[in-house]
């Protein structure tokens, strides 16, 4: 039978997955990005310095990653020498955004796939938030409305957590996480002005002066977030893993892994990063070469040529193209399908023995859960790798604040050449993000973004090979083929962002 899973909720944007199910096993899956705006088209002819602002609006969930990738691309194009403060401010703004996004992804976007909301009706304690929630759910269910307790009910059928205390604890943390994500965003706003969509990030640094009052305010907020990560978020992931250990073996993608590395440690353009870049193919990690990235479009709704390199990309929308089923392109590395995201980021770093904390955390959790490092390629692996990223980033941000010079410059002097080109790559929370800018006659002649979910939710490539998420879904057993909670858990573990993927 054929079942459409879309519109998939608790993700960013408009995603459908067309599945074929036989004998309760998904035998085919097609990921369909269903919203298109055409950023690369309307960026042409604009002032180059518009780019880090316009591209943030690709995604309101991870806008800072786009601002950073665009700034790096322009820094490379303009050959800027970024002052130490500029690099650190970029990291402080972007890093805080990662922390908020991990919490949002786990609690608001994923938890309801596992947690039984109705357990609140059994609550007998005295916590004011939980009593309020209990009263509200009771009143809703008694109200006779068509959709009581929306948006938490109705939900998909399936096996949720049985343990009442665990469910109720998770609901409490769902509420708390909403406060804590704000603290991370407040911290980012100290140096970025506001969230979402910062105006303070520029190529060459940021405009805010890192005076001591701002630094201490940032440290206090990030410390609160860090404590929540260690005391609540990580234990909750361990608890979910304990309740659903089979998800260490469900949702593995069937290709390689790519990470561009996250947050430079010095202002040198080729600086080492907190987390190392690399592409993991056939068990070995290789250096990333942007020239090996091409984007297939035979199954995408564009009539422009297929398999173009990033610097050659063109985009002609063709909404009625035959056999095309998605607005998402199919990027491939050396012709190979790869997954990007937290698991890719952690595995690529871990296998290079790069960041000692990553190594320590991977080995601690692998031992605790009795899994191999290769099982980070799974539903639970992606959640765990987000938590590992969060722990590593939070400590790094606190250390970075010590390196700020309150009297030093925060920006390079900006001078935009008449013609230039540059690549800029970073890790958004949901995976590797690459921007390319080419400037001719002082205007943007070409702009290309290859975005995390473009890789993960890609349709078939020109060889007919599935994208990472498609490959992770194919072969999955589902209890109820009409609803497929198991498939939803897989999709959510990728944290897809369709506004990003298509843009």
């Amino acid at each position, binding site marked *: 039978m054929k079942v459409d899973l879309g519109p998939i909720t608790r993700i960013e944007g408009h995603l*459908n997955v067309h599945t074929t199910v036989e004998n309760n096993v998904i035998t085919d899956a097609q990921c369909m990005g269903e919203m298109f705006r055409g950023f690369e088209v309307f960026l042409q002819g604009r002032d180059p*310095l518009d780019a880090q602002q316009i591209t943030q609006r690709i995604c309101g969930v991870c806008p800072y990653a786009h601002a950073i990738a665009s700034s790096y691309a322009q820094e490379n194009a303009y050959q800027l020498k970024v002052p130490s403060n500029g690099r650190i401010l970029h990291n402080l703004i972007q890093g805080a955004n990662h922390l908020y996004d991990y919490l949002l992804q786990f609690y608001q976007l994923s938890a309801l796939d596992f947690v039984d909301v109705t357990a609140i009706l059994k609550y007998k304690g005295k916590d004011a938030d939980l009593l309020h929630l209990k009263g509200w759910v009771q009143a809703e269910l008694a109200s006779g409305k068509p*959709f009581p307790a929306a948006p938490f009910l109705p939900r998909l059928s399936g096996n949720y957590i049985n343990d009442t205390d665990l469910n109720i604890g998770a609901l409490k943390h769902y509420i708390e996480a909403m406060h804590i994500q704000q603290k991370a965003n407040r911290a980012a706003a100290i140096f970025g002005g506001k969230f979402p*969509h910062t105006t303070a990030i520029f190529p060459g640094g940021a405009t805010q002066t890192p005076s001591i009052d701002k630094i201490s305010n940032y440290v206090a907020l990030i410390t609160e977030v860090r404590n929540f990560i260690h005391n609540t978020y990580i234990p909750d992931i361990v608890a979910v893993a304990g309740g659903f250990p089979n998800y260490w073996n469900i949702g593995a993608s069937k290709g390689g892994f790519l990470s561009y590395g996250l947050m430079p440690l010095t202002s040198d353009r080729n600086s080492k990063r907190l987390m190392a870049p690399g592409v993991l193919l056939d068990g070995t990690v290789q250096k990333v070469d942007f020239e090996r990235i091409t984007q297939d479009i035979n199954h995408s709704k564009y009539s422009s040529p297929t398999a173009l390199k990033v610097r050659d990309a063109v985009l002609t929308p063709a909404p009625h193209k035959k056999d095309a089923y998605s607005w998402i392109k199919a990027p491939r590395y050396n012709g190979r399908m790869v997954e990007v995201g937290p698991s890719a980021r952690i595995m690529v770093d871990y296998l290079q023995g790069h960041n000692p904390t990553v190594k320590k955390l991977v080995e601690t959790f692998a031992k605790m859960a009795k899994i191999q490092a290769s099982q980070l390629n799974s539903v639970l692996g992606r959640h765990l790798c987000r938590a590992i990223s969060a722990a590593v980033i939070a400590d790094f941000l606190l250390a970075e604040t010590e390196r700020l010079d309150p009297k030093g410059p925060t920006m390079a002097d900006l001078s935009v050449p008449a013609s230039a080109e540059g690549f800029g790559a970073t890790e958004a929370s949901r995976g590797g993000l690459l921007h390319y800018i080419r400037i001719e006659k002082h205007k943007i002649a070409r702009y290309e973004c290859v975005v995390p979910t473009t890789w993960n939710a890609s349709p078939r490539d020109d060889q007919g090979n599935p994208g990472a998420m498609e490959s992770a879904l194919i072969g999955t057993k589902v209890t109820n083929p009409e609803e497929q909670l198991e498939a939803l858990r897989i999709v959510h573990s990728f944290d897809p962002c369709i506004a990003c993927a298509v843009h």
Partner: protein
Amino acid sequence: MIDRRQFLQMAATLSTVFGVSNLPAPVQAALNKIDPASLPKLVYLQGQSCTGCSISLLQAESPSPASLITDYSQLAFHADLSAISGKKAVEMITRFVTGQAGPYLLAIEGAIPAKMPEACVIGEHPFAWYLDQAAKTMTAAVAVGTCASHGGIPAAEGNPTGACSLREYYAQTGVKKPVIAIPGCPPHPDWVWQTVVHLVKIGMPELTKDGSPKLFFDRKVHETCPRYHDFQQEIFAKKLGANGCLFKLGCLGPDTSADCPTRWWNGGQNWCIGANAPCIGCASPIFARKKNFPFYRIAELQKTSK
């Protein structure tokens, strides 16, 4: 026009969506008198959006997101929060927009691809289909953010989808239902829910010529900017990151109506000019629309200095 009763209903609905925990006591009391079971529902749909508006609404500190969870029983559907997914989610939306689930308000985030309906699809229909249905059945609509209010980034010059705002779309299709525009890329969460407070206490807010509450959008950023003194003294920042009035770097505060200089963002933490960053006019009806109207005047300064 909608009458005061409809507005009260709408206000109460919105307040349950965005929370009311920290409202002044008389307002809270007024809201408490309304039986939640009798309220119209709110259906929040996303078109050509980036979800930044929704994420901004989650940054509302007073009221808190916790009250968002427990008090928004009337939020029938929001793609980022609803537990239900897939066919059942579409069924729910469809029941509302076809008038089978009682009165409701429509909140729209994002633009409408008027010339390429395939560029935004929900379930089996283009996004615009839901808007067409809703036009016949909804009480009123709130355009959340600059895209839904004025077109915004998806409607930037040279865009391939013919993107337009909700108001433009309804004007094109002859729909006369009221639409309140709350611009901003993203909008400040207060702008959305405090509009509701105004509705409850006073009634229909006075709107600007662009259809937005004057309470928040009546004065230019420049007029209430703490650097207005620098402007008068002709103390101008000559490069990014410098102090002084940012006008010569391209600050669009003089052209943009919003109360950012007094409200500040993220729980009052900061705002763009507070971070030394020029205003890029994100709440302006012409935000990002023209290629020859860049955000900054850096290139211009570069040329004149040579």
